């Protein structure tokens, strides 16, 4: 049995199921991070003193990470454009590059975390570090999830391109939209945790 509007757009809404679904998912993700941002604001305004990010955190490393994540965001959208042009080789290079950049982000994050632990900075040290570890940790989980999906699309999922190229293109677009959202969250996490 075939589900209608899985690939083609429904005329009156102008959407296909997947695109609407991913936006619903992101709306709920927004509320998830909203809960954490709310916690951050409430704890910060309620505290008698809040450290500057630079007192505990490594700003240059985080700046590099921001650059890495934004670059991965641009490679994934260029990959999608390449796929639209049916340029499979270019698509695969750019998509692999996205995954690579994702891993670089995680590796840098790993060094950042281990440096904290080395200095005996733990989530239990103070509330600032607690919210730092929780928010970035949750963000890392989102990166990991995105990487798993992207790797799936690049290797085992690629056979769909031969069977139903339009459906595959749709999936790549959705993976991109999710990846940009993860980037977007980082764009806000970076200033509020590190710079302010």
């Amino acid at each position, binding site marked *: 049995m075939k589900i*209608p509007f899985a690939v083609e757009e429904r005329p009156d809404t102008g959407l296909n199921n997947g695109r609407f679904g991913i936006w*619903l998912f992101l709306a709920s993700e927004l509320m998830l991070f*909203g809960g954490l941002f709310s*916690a951050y604001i409430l*704890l910060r305004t309620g505290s008698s003193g809040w450290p500057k990010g630079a007192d505990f955190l490594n700003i240059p490393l985080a700046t590099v990470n921001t650059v890495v994540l934004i670059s991965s965001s641009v490679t994934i959208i260029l990959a999608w454009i390449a796929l639209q042009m049916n340029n499979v080789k270019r698509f695969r290079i750019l998509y692999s590059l996205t995954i690579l950049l994702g891993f670089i982000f995680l590796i840098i994050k790993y060094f950042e975390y281990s440096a904290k632990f080395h200095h005996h900075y*733990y989530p239990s040290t103070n509330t600032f570090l607690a919210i730092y*570890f*929780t928010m970035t940790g949750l963000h890392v989980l989102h990166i990991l999830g995105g990487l798993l999906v992207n790797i799936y699309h690049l290797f085992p999922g690629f056979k769909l391109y031969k069977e139903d190229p339009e459906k595959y293109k749709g999936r790549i677009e959705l993976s991109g939209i999710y990846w940009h959202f993860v980037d977007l969250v980082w764009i806000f996490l970076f200033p509020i945790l590190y710079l302010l």
Partner: protein
Amino acid sequence: MDNHSSSQSFWSKYVFSLDHKVIGIQYGLTSLGFLILGFSLVLLMRWQLAYPEQALPLIGKFFGNASMPDGVMLPEFYNSLGAMHGTIMIFLGVVPLGVGAFGNYLVPLQIGAPDMAFPKLNMASYWCFFVGGFVMLLGFAMPGGAANSGWTAYPPLSIVATSGQTVWLIGMVFLITSSLLGSINTIVTIVQLRAKGMTFMRMPTLVWTQLVTAFLLLMAFPPLEAAGVLQLMDRLAGTSFFMPEGLVLSGQILPYTGGGSVLLWQHLFWFLAHPEVYVLILPAMGIVSEVIANNTRKPLWGRKGMIYASVFLGFMSFIVWAHHMYLTGMGTVISAFFQATTMIISIPSVIILTSLLLSLWGGSIRFNTAMLFSLAFLPMFGIGGLTGLPLGLAAADVHLHDTYYVIGHFHYIVAPGTIFALFSGIYYWYPKITGRQMSETLGKWHFWPSLICMNCIFFPMLIQGLAGVSRRLYDGGATYELAKDVLYLNKVMSASAALLFVAQIPFIINVFTSFWRGKKASANHWDATTLEWAATSSPPLGHGNFEVIPEVFRDPYEYNPPNSDKEFLPQNFDLQNDKKRED
């Protein structure tokens, strides 16, 4: 059934099925099981409340020394039972039945869709729910017992609680994931997969309420997930998001760095839990309006008003949550804001209830069991709603907060309200689901005792609460002088609760025997107009929903239409075609 479905194996057909109807039935059976379990837990509590510190006869000795030495309940076990009763009834019983079962089964059929938009997500949603429920029950096996900080899991109590609380939090993460997947699926299905001619305003009320409910689940659950993560961090990583400085437990200063806010949890929790109330009640309203329209044989009065009211209700439910927190010392200005929004949100509820009540006017009512349950829903929900108003006003709440009045109030909404509506839905759609009728005699043996017992349980709670009996007392108020005059009610309530349990036996027998022995039902057993009856066989096909996807020509409840000789006009009935054929 077509050949394709019979070639599937047992596992892919009934267990890991992608068909929304099978998943709906899975949700239904699992959640009915959880409802019975949650009810059994409260029966144990009711024994303790009526006969404090007396040994529970017969089964008491089976519970072991950790919970009930010599059959006498320990206070910790009582707390566990309370927390798990709330959690199981809300997150594993009523919501999965109303949203998971009825939503899954009926939404695609009523809008003329072949299935849900994402069948695999649908299956994943059910199995997340199943695992979440299983993890919740694992809590009972933990040292120190299951979660015992109430279903609200307020810190600091929940942070210093035994390991059952950690299991509770992990279970909640699974349940939240499940409801997230389910709600995305429902919304996409309703927006994208409506059949030709099924405009939004032609959708049956049940579909509308499911749509609003799905939005509530989608937007309100994630903050609780965030709060759950923070609480897990507090419990496992030693952070102090919810822990203020210098807390002392049993003479020891707790090793938390401090700086946290206990109220932060309350905000994040009630940001979910107030919309959750409407998640409980909206599907029930949808079911009741279907049953009432069908059994009064006339269109719903003010159907569009009801639709707008439920959308407004859903929207407002996000900005009333702090009325659960009046006694935490909030300022008067912000308390006035939340009192105002709380009063405003009662308006759409009243619109819906009034429309349903006025729909009865002038109808030739068929008093079958489904209709009886729906009719009972109206006054029961009315009592529940009206008793809520004093709680929404800070001045009255000072007296009533945390008393049995609160328990009576929300149980009137959920137990004889929502659960009656769900029973009504089961009696109403059973012929569609199984192709057989349920016994009306057993149904009436189920209905009348249930109605009486429900009121004998929950009305005395209102009286006790007005007398000032706290809801947290392990002995039901026996140690308090002020409770002396209303203490006898504990025995009344407990006896009624036991009888209510007995009253469910006809229902259980009815569900199982009718499945094999019930009279065969026709495809449109109740002469209904919505698509699930009009265009499908009974039971609907195992795989796929319709032989031909129907086209919709009119509003959902065209019973006894003027200018027509027909008693009812199904939504997909083409009048012009019919006329041509007659000519």
